[in-house]
């Protein structure tokens, strides 16, 4: 008669152990998934280049042209049709930096809006040669203005 009681005790104990083990596994899985949902990696990710603020880049952009940097800021605009560019707000008011990616290589989804994004890439100078009359039919070789953007090879959102 003592045997079944002992067996029952044993099976209860092993059930408890199993439940604890399952809970531990579930916790690990949940932690992994939570971690995955917190950070999203785009392209080659961020490997760690010189950190630069948007205000620093815009204050002396020529110093940064061709230089690989990591820039962090909240995403305030994205290309909604193809996800081929995003815009990071600067650390100072009225400043932002355009993040350009090669079409299809990295795609920024609209869900990134408002999230903090760290981008790695080279700062590049872009000449605007035509403005409103850019129909492609008129030749317009004259440089009208210039802006600076980061050509991203990778990014990580928080």
């Amino acid at each position, binding site marked *: 008669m003592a045997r079944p009681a002992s067996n029952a005790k044993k099976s209860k104990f092993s059930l408890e152990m199993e439940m604890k083990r399952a809970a531990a596994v579930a916790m690990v899985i949940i932690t992994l998934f939570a971690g995955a949902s917190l950070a999203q990696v785009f392209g080659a990710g961020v490997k760690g280049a010189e950190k630069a603020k948007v205000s620093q880049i815009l204050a002396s952009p020529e110093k940064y042209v061709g230089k690989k940097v990591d820039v962090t800021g*909240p*995403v*305030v605009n994205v290309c*909604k*049709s*193809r996800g081929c560019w995003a815009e990071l*707000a600067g650390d100072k*008011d*009225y400043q*932002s930096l355009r993040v350009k990616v090669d079409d*299809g290589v990295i*795609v920024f989804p*609209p869900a990134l*809006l*408002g*999230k903090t994004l760290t981008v790695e890439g080279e700062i590049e100078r872009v000449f605007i040669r035509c403005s409103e009359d850019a129909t492609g039919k008129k030749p317009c070789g004259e440089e009208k203005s210039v802006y600076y953007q980061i050509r991203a090879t990778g990014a990580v959102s928080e």
Partner: protein
Amino acid sequence: MNWGRLNRALHRDLGYFFAGLTLLYAISGIALNHAGDFNPSYNVEKETIRAAVIPQEGNEETILSAVGAKGPVKTVFRPAPGKIQIITEGENIAADTVTGEISVERIRERPLIFPLNYLHLNHPKGAWTYAADIYALALAFLAASGLFLVKGKNGLMGRAMVLTGAGMLLPVVFYLIYH
């Protein structure tokens, strides 16, 4: 081994297996083909309202209540003097504190078509790239094996040759005309 029977069986079974992927690529292909006319992946709703008064400072609450924004604020950005952008969970709000004009953008993934486009454009990358490669190879096999399904006047030396040739000529003609 009866090659004809094997070809027919493979054509049939691969055709069944890849029917779903063919529909996926066909449906999203039509949507993506017209990306210039509409946003194939997202539904972007835009609304503009005019608020009576927007204070120059501490105006976030005024703007949020004017548009009835529900989600928590993710980011506040001032792109230019007198302009403020508030991004909430689900809304992208841009306000002009001088004119009182507030524009709200609500971006939603299009049901059904968003996942299809997501896969068609290979956004998942990784293993999906190889799955799509296998599908492309299977399509090539289906095209080639289809030529040998029927014998006689409707087979490779008859109707099949004429129609397949015409089908292959089609992209060539378009290329020559438009390139």
